[in-house]
C-alpha cells in the first residue's frame, strides 16, 4: 500500500532533474581529471558510488514516516550537536577539524543543516500562535545559532554561513515579523562592515581614506560607541514612557532609532573582534580579491582569475567535452570540487551554463510546488529551508566562479565531487519527495 502511494504521488521531474544533474557532474568530474594522476582519475568512479549511495538514501527516506521523524527531531538535533562537539576534540587537518573514526569521516555540519531545518521548523510550527512575538524568534535563533557557533569553532566559516539563509527562509515562511528578519540581515552585514571597509580602504584608497581611518581608530570608535549607547538608552527610556510627555508619533521615531542604532551598536561591537580575531589572513585576502581579483593575481587572486578566464573562454558553445583549454592544462584549481562550474562553462560554453541553471530552475520549480502544496506549516518550513540551503550553495559556488560572491569553499549541489555532500543533496531531494508523496496526509 505504501509503495503504491509512492508510485502514484511521486514527483518524477524532481528525481529526474537531480539524477541528470549528478550525471552531468560525474561526466565533468571525469573530464576534469583525465590529465591528472591515477589517484584523481578514479574520482568519477567514487562519485558514481556516492551518487548511488545517495539514491539509496533517497529511496529509504521515501519510506520514512515524517510524523515519527518530526517527533524525534530533537534527538537527531542532539546527536548532530554531540557529533559537532566531539569534532572539536579531533586534530585539525589543513586548519580544520574533522570527525573521523576508523577512516570514515563524517561531516556533522552537513547533517546539522538538516537537523536545524527540522528542529527550527518544528519549533515555529508548535509556536505558530505567538509567531509574531520576539521571544519566539529569539528562541528560534538560539536553536539555530548554537550549532553555528560550534561549527565556527572547527573552524568552518563557509559551512556556518549556510545556516543564515536557512534560518532566514524558514523564519520568513513561518511568518516571523519582517522587521526582525531585516534586523538579522542588517546585523550580519554590519558585522562584516569593518572587514569590508578596511579591505576597500587598502584596495581603493591605499589606506589613506580619512573617514575609514577614523572608523578604525580606537579613540573615535569609543566616542561613537558612547554616543550610540547614550542615544539608545535615552530612546529606550522615552519609548517605555519613563521619560514622560512624548507623543506617540515621536515614540515611533524612537522605536526605529533604537532599531537601527542597536544594529550599528551590536554589529560594530562584534565587527571589530571579527575583523581582528575571527577572520584569518586568507579570508581577508578573499574579500580583497572579491573587490579586485587583479590585486594579487599570482596568489590569492589566481584561482578566481583562472576560473573566470576559463568561463569566459568557453564562449557561447564551449570548447567541447574534455577539450577545455584552461581546464585540461590545469590552470583552474580544485576542478572537481569547488571549481567544477568553470569546467562545465568552458567545455559546454554559455549553453552549458544555461543547461545547469535550467535544471536547477526546474528543481526549484518543483521544490516550491511541493512546498506550496504542503498541508502544514512544518512541512512548508522544512521544504523552504531545504530549498534555500541548496539555493545558497548554488549562488555561493557559481557566484564565486563568476565573480559576484567572495571565494568560500562551498560545493555545487549534485555536481561537485564529495561523498557526504552528494548524499546530503539526495537526502534533501528524498525529503522533498517524501513531503510530496504524503502531501495529502500531513
Amino acid at each position: 500500500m505504501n509503495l503504491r502511494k509512492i508510485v502514484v504521488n511521486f514527483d518524477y521531474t524532481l528525481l529526474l532533474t537531480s539524477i541528470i544533474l549528478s550525471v552531468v557532474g560525474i561526466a565533468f568530474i571525469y573530464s576534469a581529471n583525465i590529465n591528472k594522476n591515477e589517484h584523481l582519475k578514479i574520482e568519477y568512479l567514487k562519485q558514481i558510488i556516492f551518487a548511488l549511495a545517495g539514491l539509496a538514501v533517497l529511496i529509504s527516506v521515501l519510506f520514512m514516516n515524517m510524523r515519527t521523524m518530526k517527533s524525534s527531531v530533537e534527538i537527531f538535533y542532539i546527536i548532530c550537536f554531540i557529533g559537532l562537539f566531539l569534532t572539536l576534540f579531533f586534530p585539525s587537518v589543513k586548519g580544520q577539524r574533522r570527525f573521523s573514526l576508523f577512516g570514515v569521516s563524517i561531516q556533522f555540519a552537513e547533517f546539522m543543516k538538516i537537523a536545524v531545518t527540522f528542529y527550527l521548523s518544528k519549533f515555529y510550527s508548535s509556536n505558530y500562535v505567538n509567531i509574531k512575538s520576539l521571544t519566539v524568534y529569539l528562541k528560534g535563533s538560539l536553536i539555530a545559532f548554537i550549532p553555528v557557533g560550534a561549527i565556527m569553532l572547527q573552524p568552518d566559516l563557509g559551512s556556518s554561513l549556510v545556516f543564515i539563509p536557512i534560518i532566514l527562509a524558514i523564519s520568513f515562511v513561518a511568518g516571523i515579523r519582517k522587521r526582525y528578519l531585516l534586523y538579522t540581515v542588517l546585523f550580519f552585514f554590519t558585522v562584516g562592515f569593518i572587514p569590508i571597509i578596511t579591505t576597500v580602504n587598502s584596495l581603493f584608497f591605499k589606506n589613506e581614506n580619512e573617514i575609514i581611518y577614523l572608523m578604525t581608530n580606537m579613540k573615535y570608535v569609543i566616542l561613537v560607541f558612547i554616543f550610540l549607547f547614550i542615544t539608545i538608552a535615552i530612546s529606550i527610556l522615552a519609548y517605555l514612557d519613563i521619560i514622560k510627555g512624548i507623543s506617540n508619533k515621536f515614540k515611533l521615531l524612537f522605536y526605529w532609532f533604537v532599531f537601527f542604532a542597536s544594529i550599528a551598536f551590536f554589529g560594530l561591537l562584534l565587527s571589530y573582534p571579527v575583523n581582528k580575531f575571527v577572520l584569518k589572513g586568507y579570508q581577508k585576502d578573499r574579500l580583497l580579491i572579491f573587490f579586485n581579483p587583479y590585486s594579487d593575481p599570482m596568489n590569492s587572486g589566481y584561482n578566481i582569475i583562472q576560473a573566470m578566464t576559463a568561463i569566459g573562454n568557453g564562449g557561447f558553445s564551449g570548447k567541447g567535452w574534455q577539450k577545455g583549454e584552461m581546464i585540461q592544462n590545469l590552470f583552474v584549481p580544485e576542478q572537481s570540487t569547488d571549481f567544477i562550474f568553470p569546467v562545465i562553462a568552458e567545455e559546454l560554453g554559455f549553453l552549458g551554463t544555461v543547461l545547469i541553471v535550467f535544471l536547477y530552475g526546474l528543481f526549484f520549480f518543483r521544490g516550491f510546488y511541493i512546498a506550496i502544496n504542503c498541508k502544514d506549516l512544518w512541512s512548508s518550513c522544512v521544504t523552504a529551508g531545504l530549498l534555500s540551503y541548496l539555493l545558497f550553495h548554488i549562488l555561493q559556488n557559481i557566484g564565486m566562479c563568476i565573480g559576484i560572491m567572495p571565494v568560500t569553499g562551498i560545493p555545487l549541489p549534485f555536481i561537485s565531487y564529495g561523498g557526504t555532500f552528494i548524499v546530503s543533496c539526495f537526502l534533501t531531494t528524498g525529503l522533498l519527495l517524501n513531503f510530496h508523496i504524503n502531501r495529502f496526509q500531513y
Partner: protein
Amino acid sequence: MYNSSNNDSFEKDIQFRLIILALFTTFILVIIVLRAGYLQIVKNTNFSERSQRNREVVIRIPPIRGRIFSDDGSILASNKKIYNIIIDPNNLSKDQIKRQKTLLYLSEMTDIDYPDIEKMVQTAKIKKERLTIAENVSFTNYIKILENIDTMPGVEPEELLIRDYPNQQLASHVIGYIGPINFNEFSKLQASGYKKQDWIGKIGIENSYEKELRGKDGFVAYEIDAKMNVSRNNFVRKEAALPGDDLLLSIDLQFQKNVEAILADRAGGIVVMKPSSGEILAMVSYPNFDPNIYILQNPENYTKRIEMSLDTKGTPLINRTIQSEYPPGSTFKMISSFIIAEENVVPLTKSYFCSKSFRLNSQTFGCWAYHGNENFFEALANSCDTYYYNTSLLFGIEKITEYASLFGLGASTGVDIPFERRGFIPSVTALKEKGETWYLGNTLNTVIGQGDVTTTVLQLADYVSVIANRGVSYKPHVLKKIIDPNTGDVKKEIKPEILNKVNISQDTFFVVNQAMGMVISQGTANKAFYNLKRPFAGKTGTSEVGVGQKKQTHSLFVGFGPLDIPIEEQVVVAVLIEFENGQPLKYAGNVAAMVFSSWIHKEDFPATAKRMWYPVKDSYN
C-alpha cells in the same frame, strides 16, 4: 494543525511567502545566467585572448638585419655568426671534482685563468644570471667544446648573429653602428614592437634607415600547462621573421678608400658629391672609429668605447662633414660675387685698390696679401678681401643674408645621415633678437665668411653644386637603392630631389663660374691644380677661429669639375682641414686636387700623389 477559523488565511499567507521566496530564487538564477552570459558572450574575446596568453609561451625570433652595400656591391655592413659559450651556474655539476674539471677545461679552451672563471661563476650565481664565459670562440674550439658538452652539465653553446663591419674604419661615419637600445629609445619605440633586449642603429645609415634595416619579428608559440611544462615538439603558432631590407649606397668603396688615404691623418672632412643628382660618392671624416667595437660586449671593446667617448679633442664620433660647423672663410665670397653681378652693384671691370688693409672708421680690416688693383674676376681668383670690403659697404648685410639662404646655407640639407647641423648665417634680425646692434664691421667680417657665419662641409658642397648646375642643387643622399633581401628586387630607388633652386640669371652664373675657373687657372689654387692639366672651378678658403694668441686657421676648398666633360660626370668636392695654421702639408687645395685626380684617373693615393708631385708620408701632422 491550524485553527479551523483562520486556517485558510494562514495557509494563504504561507503560500504567498513561499511564492515570494520562489521569485527570489528565480531572480538569483536569472542573475547568474546574465552574469555568465556577460562573461561568456560579451567578454568572450577578452578572455580567449587572456587564456591564450596564459597557455602559450611565445619565443621571439629576431629578424636578420639588412645588409649595407656600397655602389659597387661591396659589403659595408653585414651579419656574422659567432659562437659563444655560456655557463648556467645553477646547472653546473654538484660534484666538486667534475665541476672543477669542467671549469678547467673551459679555462684551457678560452684562455681565461681558472681562478677568474671560478670568480665569474660565483658572481653570476649570486646575481642569478647566466654567464657568457667566452664570446666569439674560434670555430675549431667551439667544435671541440661541443663534442664534450654532454660531460659538462651547465655549459651551453650559443650561436649568434652579430653585426659585422668588414671594412672597419672605412666610411664609419656614413655607416654608423648599432648598439643595445637605451631607455629613451625604448620608451619611444616600444609601440612599434621593440623589446628591451633589441639593438638599434645609433648613428649613420644604421640609424637613419633603422626601419628598413630592422625587418619584422617572427615567433614560435608553444603550449604550456599550469606547471609550465612546455611541449617543444609541437608549436601552436609560428610566424617566420622577415629579414630587413638591404641598402645600396651611392658611396663608391674604392673611391672612398682613396679619399680616406688622401686625407690620411689630417683632422678634417671631405665630401665628394655628384652635383647632377646629389649622390654622395665619398664622405670622409677623420679621426674616425671602428664600428665593430660597439658590437661585441667584451671588456676590451668596452675600454675602446670609453676611450672613444672620452677623446674630446679628436672627437672621432663626430662626423666632421655634417656635425661640425666651421666659418667658411673665403669660400663664402661667391655669395658676394653673385650679388655684385646679379644686382649690378658695381661694373665687373671696376677695380678697387688693395693695400693689405682696409680702414673703416677707426677699425682696420686686413687682407691676407698686398693685391694692388683688383676687379671682380681678379678679386675672386686672388681672394682679395679689400674688394669685398668695399663692395659690401654698397650692397649691405641684408643682401648677404638673402643670397646665402638662397644657396641653402644656414639650413639643413636633409641628407639621410642623422644629426646634421644647420650652420648659421648672421642677419640683422637675428642679432637684434640677441639684443645687439649691427655694425658695419660685422658686415665686413661676414662678407669674407668670418664673424658669425658658420657652415658645414656638406652645406658648402651643396652650395657649390648650385653653381655647378647653374641654378639648382639636389638633395644630398648616400642611399641609392633599397633592395629586397630575398628576391634581390629593387624596392625603392632614390630619385634626385631638388633642394635649392636659385633664380639668378645665367649671365651671372657664367661670370661667377668664370671667376671660379680663374681661381684654378691663375689664382690661389693654381699651384695645387697645376699638374692636373684640366679645367676646374673652385675656391680656396682659410677660416680663422679664436683670437689673439689662440688664433688658428682651418683650410678649405670647394670646387667642381673637370669642366671639359658634361655636368653629369662632374663632381663637387668640398674639403676642410682643421687647424692648418699655414702648414703646407695641410693645405686643402692640394688635397682637393688629389681627390679630383683620383676621381678622374680612378687611381689610388700613391699613384695620384706621384702624378701630382705630392709627398707620400706616414703622417701629415
